[in-house]
């Protein structure tokens, strides 16, 4: 029988530890499919960060480095500067990238560092059990905003794509969503373009993927996907924020 669907080569054939209904698995798959299609696994170095995806090196087949919390763009910079022919990507969550790692992501983008960033935004710290993230929506309940995120107390959500798009060094910035098949297909195109931008040496590329966290949201997987569509997208509109016309 013909094989019509299989695991990408860039993903190992192993069980993932992610919770049922979590979209990390989809995000991993998209990155791996793109690595396969561009035939770059042999020269790719991935940087895992701190958070639920700390051990993504157990899932991706390429060479990997596990970085300190928030520092993945700096670690990626060190790799890329020494090995410009390697394809270097970071895989970071919203706490990692938009809180503790704000300086590293802003300056990697400002330098036009020729790396690709996969940014998982699920509006919550997943691994440490559901605390407020910089991207937590107003009025969202988390373990550290038990009365809801109140702007007077906790400030406002950070729109990372919009922020980084103001920087000249950022070549390609897109926000996509993983809440249904149509959007997943679009997300894959975004990831692919981001890697192609790096291969074409055009500078910094980042794709933000709106993701779910059923466990910490206290919702079923299906409800979680609906929440992305109904609550997250209004705050985090989808689209290309930088490099729409970039030919790669």
């Amino acid at each position, binding site marked *: 029988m013909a094989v019509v669907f299989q695991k990408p080569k860039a993903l190992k054939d192993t069980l993932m530890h992610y919770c049922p209904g979590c979209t990390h698995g989809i995000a991993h798959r998209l990155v791996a499919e793109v690595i396969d299609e561009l035939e770059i*696994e*042999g*020269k*790719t*170095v991935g*940087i*895992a960060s701190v958070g639920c995806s*700390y*051990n993504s*090196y157990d899932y991706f*087949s*390429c*060479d*990997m*480095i*596990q*970085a*300190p919390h928030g*520092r993945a763009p*700096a*670690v*990626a*910079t*060190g*790799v*890329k*500067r*020494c*090995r410009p022919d*390697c*394809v270097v990507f970071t895989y970071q969550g919203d706490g990692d990238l938009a809180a503790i790692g704000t*300086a*590293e992501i*802003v*300056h990697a983008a400002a330098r036009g560092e020729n790396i690709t960033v996969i940014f998982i935004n699920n509006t919550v710290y997943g691994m440490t059990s559901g605390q407020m993230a910089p991207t937590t929506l107003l009025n969202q309940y988390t373990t550290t905003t038990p009365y809801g995120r109140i702007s007077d107390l906790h400030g406002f959500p950070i729109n990372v794509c919009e922020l980084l798009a103001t920087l000249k060094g950022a070549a390609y910035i897109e926000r996509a969503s993983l809440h249904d098949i149509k959007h997943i297909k679009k997300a894959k195109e975004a990831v692919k373009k981001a890697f192609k931008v790096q291969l074409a040496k055009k500078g910094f590329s980042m794709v933000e993927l709106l993701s779910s966290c059923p466990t910490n949201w206290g919702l079923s997987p299906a409800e979680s996907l609906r929440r992305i569509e109904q609550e997250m997208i209004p705050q985090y509109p989808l689209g290309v924020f930088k490099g729409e016309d970039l030919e790669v």
Partner: protein
Amino acid sequence: MGQKRLMRGNEAIAEAAIRAGCLYYFGYPITPQTEIAHYMARKLPERGGVFLQAESEVAAINMVYGAGSTGTRVMTSSSSPGISLKQEGLSYLAGAQVPAVVVNIMRAGPGLGGIQPSQSDYFQACKGGGHGDYRQIVLAPASVQELYELTVEAFNLADRYRIVVMILGDGILGQMMEVVEFRDEELIEHYDKPWAVTGHGNVREQNVITSIHLNPAVLENMNRNLQEKYELIKKKECRYELFRHDDADLFIVAYGTVARIAKSVIEMARREGIKAGLIRPVTLWPFPTEAFEKVMDRAKAFLTVEMSSGQMLEDVLLAVNGRRKVYFHGRMGGMVPAREDILKVIRDMHEKHVKNYKAAVTAGS
């Protein structure tokens, strides 16, 4: 030896690094070591390398982590408050066994402190400034010539043991100018780095650089491997200088700039008939306890002199282990110990441990 040049200490470090094959530097400005960055910014592009001014010390050490993970010789430099910021990264480098060279040209603390020379980061450098059971090799040069030679050696040691090597200098060493004689050819040791993360090229298994092991048994095993490596380094890499030690009965223990002052004090003491000598640790970790065994028979007492409140003093006390009295003289805040003050302590020690000891022995017999 070959070409001679008059150089500032910081520049000698930078030139040495380049000669040792380090073409990648990531750093952030801070007095009194910034000349290292200036030199690298000028020279590395000429040699096909990369100088990058990072957004912070934190970012700089993580760029070093990334660069070192590719098996490339890499360094960063800073001064005390900046080195504090690098501690998280240093702990990761230790855990993941990524080789790198880190220079600390110490200034006085705590806090923002001042920009004058100090030795008050000894604990941080030698006892593990970051979290976890880890060590780094700490080298303490005492001249511009030695800054050059030990920096070259630091890269060899880092690669040999997959460890961070710290050059621990102070503001005087960084800023002073002396003649340096460069070797015609550097003694660069080359090591295979099959662990390096460079893309597997579809020809080998995946390489992973990591320090996380959530299984405690695995993590304990990793720690045991680290400790075994540290024991090997302790056995093989202790370095020290003994000065005027053959006939000495009183010993000053000092490193770096203070060791130079101590040598001058020892000559002054000898003109007064006091037989003083010097133990100068060159490796601060591993601490050269062997030097103490060599002189213990003859030594009547020790005097530790530091530009701190007494940090190396604790290692001296451990090495002497109660067998002799250990005195201490220190200055802090960027103040430098004066020869006369040290000599005064030496005279008192001579009075108590040599003259009176002789009198007591004579009376007893």
